[in-house]
């Protein structure tokens, strides 16, 4: 018998590094779980993660391949012995999957307590470790030394486990459908956005590129895809998406991990949150694929991404000369002779009837005037504005600028003489808009963008004929290049001999 039962209240033990906990159960700093294969380890992790959080065990957690002196290989999981309660749960689950559990601190580990020894076991004889051994397990009727062969990082194990297909898991309840993640191929993005938008589904979208590509990937290959976060996806749309190639639906299991709908990770991911770095968002695909995209996800609303039809080629609408109705707050606005000094003429409104005169005048204008004037043709007349240092065309009704963009006939003022801001608000006047008061009719507004330089507007459309160019240069002479046509292997077979002719005399001298 290599072990003896620990008695209640016992305080001295042969095994180094163990002590009774408050309940009197013998505990070292760690527990060692011994499994014959890696499948046992995974089964234990799966069971434990579904019952409790693995996060609390992860400080000091280690999975190692070990070897006995007879070269039989086993798997060992080292977990911190936080309390005898946690160890009890680990021990229960270890037995369930066919393993065994030991406790100790560094090199000697004794069997953890069971029904026969509620306070645990202590080793009877602690000897020196054989050469090369790293630790020794003391069981009921054996003491076995082990040598470490290697470590299996749990993070790598986590990312390499194949997702399990869960029958019927594609039918999600309303709570599960409250937040889903879609991975959509580029080509389908536009259609999915439109479809979700039409069906009034709230969604956000982002373009993500998974990190950690393979060295065998094509360097120019684009691995990015569209990631949607969808809220309250209707069941019929979910079924549609699940059946559409190019669209993969994921269920969010932690803040930074999502698993494909219809599948489940063997280990409860919510219990291993510390193994999933906050800097990445993990997408667990079926088929052993895990994409890590940069987190937090920066997504945009799909409502801002719906397609906009821009008709840049369409004809621009004619300058609008719509007169806005003056708000009848109190007294109507009127034009009255100005009291102050006369202002500079900045524009003129030429009646359409005088447009022929204007055309004739354009022939006489110097280039600076043509460049400096801007013109808009409205149904109320031709409005010509001049920039600084350009004299205005002496035609039509001359206008001066009362405030920026507000044009009144020269020598007139608007009464009542309210401030420019009040006037602008009353008229609906703002930047980019010209408001023109004239003697006849109501004031009208037009967009400043409808004014084009007179230089550009002045030319009528001309028919340009393209002249034919006759090339008088000599034809370029190519270099003669010999090309050998295929003649076959036996082309010369049967080639006749030359006729026996004498050289002809010089025929023509």
């Amino acid at each position: 018998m290599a072990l003896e039962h620990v008695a209640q209240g016992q305080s001295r033990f042969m095994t180094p590094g163990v002590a009774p906990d408050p309940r009197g159960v013998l505990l070292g700093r760690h527990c060692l779980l011994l499994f014959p294969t890696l499948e046992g380890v995974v089964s234990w992790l799966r069971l434990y993660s579904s019952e409790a959080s693995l996060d609390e065990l992860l400080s000091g957690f280690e999975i190692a391949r070990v070897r006995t002196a007879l070269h039989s290989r086993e798997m060992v999981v080292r977990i911190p012995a936080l309390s005898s309660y946690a160890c009890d749960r680990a021990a229960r689950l270890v037995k369930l999957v066919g393993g065994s559990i030991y406790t100790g601190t560094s090199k000697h580990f004794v069997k953890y307590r069971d029904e026969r020894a509620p306070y645990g076991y202590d080793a009877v004889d602690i000897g020196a470790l054989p050469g090369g051994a790293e630790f020794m397990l003391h069981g009921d009727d054996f003491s076995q030394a082990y040598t470490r062969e290697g470590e299996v990082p749990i993070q790598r194990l986590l990312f390499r486990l194949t997702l399990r297909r869960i029958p019927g898991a594609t039918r999600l309840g309303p709570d599960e459908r409250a937040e889903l993640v879609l991975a959509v191929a580029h080509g389908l993005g536009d259609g999915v956005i439109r479809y979700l938008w039409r069906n009034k589904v709230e969604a956000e979208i982002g373009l993500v590129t998974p990190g950690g590509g393979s060295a065998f990937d094509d360097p120019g290959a684009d691995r990015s895809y569209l990631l949607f976060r969808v809220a309250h996806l209707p069941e019929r749309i979910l079924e549609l998406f699940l059946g559409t190639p190019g669209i993969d639906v994921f269920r969010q299991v932690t803040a930074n991990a999502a698993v494909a709908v219809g599948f489940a990770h063997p280990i409860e991911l919510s219990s291993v949150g510390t193994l999933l770095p906050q800097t990445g968002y993990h997408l667990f695909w079926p088929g052993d694929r895990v994409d890590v995209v940069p987190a937090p996800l920066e997504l945009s609303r799909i409502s801002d991404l719906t397609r906009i039809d821009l008709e840049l080629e369409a004809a621009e609408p004619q300058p609008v000369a719509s007169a806005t109705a003056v708000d009848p707050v109190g007294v109507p606005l009127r034009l009255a002779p100005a009291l102050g000094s006369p202002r500079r003429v900045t524009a003129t409104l030429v009646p359409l009837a005088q447009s022929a005169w204007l055309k004739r005048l354009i022939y006489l204008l110097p280039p600076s005037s043509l460049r400096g004037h801007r013109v808009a043709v409205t149904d109320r007349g031709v409005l010509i504005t001049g920039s600084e240092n350009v004299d205005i065309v002496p035609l039509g009704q001359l206008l001066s600028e009362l405030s920026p963009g507000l044009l009144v006939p020269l020598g007139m003022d608007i009464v009542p003489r309210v401030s420019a801001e009040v006037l602008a608000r009353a008229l609906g006047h703002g930047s980019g808009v010209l408001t023109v008061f004239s003697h006849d009719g109501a004031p009208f507004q037009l967009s400043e963008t409808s004014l084009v330089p007179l230089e550009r507007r002045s030319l009528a459309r001309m028919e340009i004929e393209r002249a034919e160019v006759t090339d008088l240069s000599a034809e370029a002479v190519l270099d003669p290049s010999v090309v050998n046509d295929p003649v076959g292997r036996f082309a010369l077979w049967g080639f006749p001999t030359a006729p026996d002719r004498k050289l002809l005399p010089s025929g023509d001298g």
Partner: protein
Amino acid sequence: MARPTVQSFLSRFVRPLVAGGEIHVGRPLTVEDVDAFDHELPHASVESEAVDDARAAVLAPLVCRVPPLLLERDDLALAAALHNTLFLVHPQADGVTITDKMRRRIIDMTQALATQPLTRRRPRVLGRHALLHNVFDLARTDLQLSWWTGRARFLGQQPPARLLRWKGVRRVREEVSRAGYDELLGASDVAPVMAMLLRRTPLTQVLSTHVAAPALHWEDAVFLLRDAELARLVAYHAVAPAAAAGAGALGGDGKELVATPARLAAAFEQMIERNPPAADVRAVAAFLVHLGALLVLGERGMREVGARSPLLSSVLAPERAGQRPRGLSTFFALPNALAVVEPRLAAPPGLLDDPVLARRWQVHRTQAAEAVGDAVIETLAQRLARHLGGQPVDPVAAVSLPGAPA
């Protein structure tokens, strides 16, 4: 293999030969083929007119009035001879199924085709030149293709597309090279055929040549010098290689400028070794002197009339005497030698009437005499005297021309 038609022969071989482009070389042609071509020629008016138009375009820069050209049997035979000559460097003319006897038959057949009457008729001379003027510019694009497990060479042929696939994976490497006249038509077994062929078009041989081409026989070409327009064409072509060789011809040391005159003088050297008629020797000698006068004319604008000629200083430099092209010494020594043997030929008529030109001519003669040496002039004069019948006089008196302005 089906017999080629005259239409395909004209459009795929003759027209590109004249106008440039891809010249397709296929199965060698026989005399019977050419006879059949001649028989079918009236039914190939489109193709033959295209060839004639191309020939007229070639001649248009050379003569004022291009004679009417009509493709004839001897033109077809000469083109077929060139075709067969090109076939001899076809990759399939040198395989395991081709024996020496077969090649000999092709060469014999080609010689039979090239055996056409020599001609001195101006239209026919021009027509043959237009047909074969590109013969020294013929080239072939060769491709050396290597990939990870092997290599192959394609001479004027396109490699199969499968050999060019997956260039990165199969590490396909292409090396393109150009084969010129010397590789295509300069081989020893085809040299007699080419000599025979080129003898049929003396204008081509006078106007252009290649280092690997047969030498010019002035006896065949001297009649060109008796046609004023053709003689002018040959002369201007000989001293204006800048048009063909680019700016380097005049911008360099002048070697390009005197290359053709030297070649023609070298042929003259060979001519006077034989027994040509004295009239022919006189004609060629006068022509070469005329070329020298054209070089003098090119220096008429020099600031100092009596300054030494930079051209002669460059091409006849003593330190480069060993690198002088063949015939160059003869070319510059000829006026001095003729002054000894036949003074009427020693200077072009009327040249000495212009005092500036006469001075430059004197400078040239003196400088040439210093550069080539009296021994060369004396030897040349003796050889000329054998043909011209004059008695040699003192060369020193010859180089100091009487009556020339100082």
